């Protein structure tokens, strides 16, 4: 402010007006949003990562006893990134989940973190293509088209398919960048870093886009008391969406991985290396 005032004193009336105008313009550019954004975050819930998984007697699912469900960790990175964009550019973050009423609690947590509203979709989904289809239908009808960006985790830690993000992008015919660990954007294009074997790929895409988040992208915030209180009155809309075609993937059964027998405890490094060489034959 001090420098500006000095500058004014040394200028004529006309250039003073010009200077004020330029200053205001610069001020607006740094603080006001270029464009407020409609941001969609797709959120799944999964058994807590420390949960021991037991197979249900029918062999088609897991035993729910004692399993607590949390927001899929990768979806939390996706949500955090959307919230950061909202803070930078202004806008609305809408959460989309496909599931039953047990999702309400985790959706409330997402609202407490800062999402504005949520849509819970009930649908008899069986595979990733089903999920991508019903999400696209819900997103289309909510926004009347595609929002500015769609954020998902790189995969869910239950079925680890890593398919929904790219499938959604194909349905909307927009770019998808998967396994993202870095995002920089001016609101028009987005420069992203995606993790690959032994390095990173740099990709630059225009809005709108789909992003799937990898650990390392950010550190998700923990909801504070104010957020938790505010979340109580934020709207969760529920809707039912039917599938348009038969599911493509059929789960025949779910098994426990073969249990390994505890092995030999050996006394020395030389004995270990000998066994790896002669018995296990891996070196």
């Amino acid at each position, binding site marked *: 402010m001090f420098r500006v005032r000095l500058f004014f004193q040394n200028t004529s009336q006309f250039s003073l007006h010009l200077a004020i105008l330029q200053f205001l313009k610069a001020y607006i550019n740094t603080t006001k949003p270029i464009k407020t954004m409609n941001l969609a975050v797709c959120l799944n819930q999964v058994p807590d990562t420390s949960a021991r998984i037991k197979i249900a007697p029918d062999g088609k699912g897991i035993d729910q006893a004692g399993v607590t469900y949390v927001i899929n960790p990768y979806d939390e990175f996706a949500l955090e990134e959307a919230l950061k964009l909202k803070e930078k550019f202004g806008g609305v973050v809408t959460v989309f989940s496909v599931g039953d009423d047990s999702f309400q609690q985790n959706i409330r947590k997402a609202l407490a973190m800062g999402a504005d509203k949520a849509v819970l979709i009930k649908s008899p989904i069986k595979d990733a293509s089903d999920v991508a289809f019903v999400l696209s239908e819900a997103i289309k009808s909510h926004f009347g088209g595609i929002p500015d960006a769609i954020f998902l985790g790189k995969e869910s830690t239950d079925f*680890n398919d890593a398919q929904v993000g790219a499938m959604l992008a194909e349905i909307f015919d927009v770019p998808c960048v998967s396994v993202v660990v870095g995002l920089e954007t001016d609101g028009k294009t987005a420069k992203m870093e995606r993790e690959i074997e032994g390095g990173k790929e740099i990709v630059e895409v225009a809005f709108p886009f789909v992003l799937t988040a990898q650990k390392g992208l950010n550190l998700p915030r923990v909801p504070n008391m104010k957020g938790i209180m505010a979340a109580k009155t934020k709207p969760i809309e529920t809707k039912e969406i039917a599938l348009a075609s038969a599911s*493509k993937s059929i789960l025949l059964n779910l098994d426990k991985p073969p249990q*390994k027998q505890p092995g030999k*405890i050996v006394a020395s490094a030389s004995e270990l*290396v000998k066994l790896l060489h002669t018995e296990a034959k891996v070196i």
Partner: protein
Amino acid sequence: MPSVLVFIEQRNGQIKRASLESLSKGAELAQGGKVVAVLIGSNIKALADGLGKYGATKVCVFENESLARYAPTAFAKLVVKVTKEESATVVLLASTAMGKDLAPRLGARLGAGVVSDAIDLKEQNGKLVAKRYAYSGKAIATVVLESEIKIFSIRPNSFPINDSHAGTAEVVVSNYNPETAELRDVVKEIVASAGKLDVAEADIVVSGGRGLRDPNGEGKQNWENLERLAQTLGGAVGASRAVVDAHWRPHSEQVGQTGKVISPKLYIACGISGAVQHLAGMSSSKVIVAINKDKDAPIFQVADYGIVGTAEEILPQLIEEFKKVMSHN
């Protein structure tokens, strides 16, 4: 007799070993039928000739300077084009960063079901039955696809490479000039972590946990030794979640439920107690070695061989012993 298409991934003119595993599997599934390999890139047509011995009967090469790096939209379009032209009903890809990204795009475009990260794939009563891990390694799912075209991405190190096919493949090279829209998501630049082998691709992985202690303090020597051990064995360094969360090691090295789920030939866990979420990421390794000072650590429950001891004493001895054996080989 299905017609099989295999997407062959190459980076810097080097075909991924995992793609050769997929191709070998594809030739097995085709049972003497058509096996079409698709190769996309810049200056790569020389790579096509070598694919016959892995079972390819035809290789479609698409060359253009603009395709030197991965361009998801263009790549998806080309693989879909060949799938349709060749009436392929089975599409295989290696489940690498590129394959995992490409497979669902193909699924959406072809209206095909996709199985990600298959660890087993065989024909049973006329159906292709795949097995894959679910719940990040804590369960195994058996799945079939009902769509006409079936896409499988295959976990690296799951199937052997078979290079004993006698036939030579017909090679068709096209210069493909993609439209601007097809390059909307092309990779601009690759930043490599210099000379590092990735944990997901390595045959041998040597992982460190909290037991190795702070690399910026008392654990400095341990981590150096761990890296030396990996180097001696030609393997990659892995890490537990605890040490990644403490910023001791990069996330790209994390093995476990929120890291990488891997199946190397040899996995050496040093100073890792073996939390459920870590075990989920490495229990499918062929041979597991655990080094831990706590004889009751859960890691010993899944280990084939264990040594009770600290990293300080065991790691230097191991390096010496491995060096001796390796120099005899």
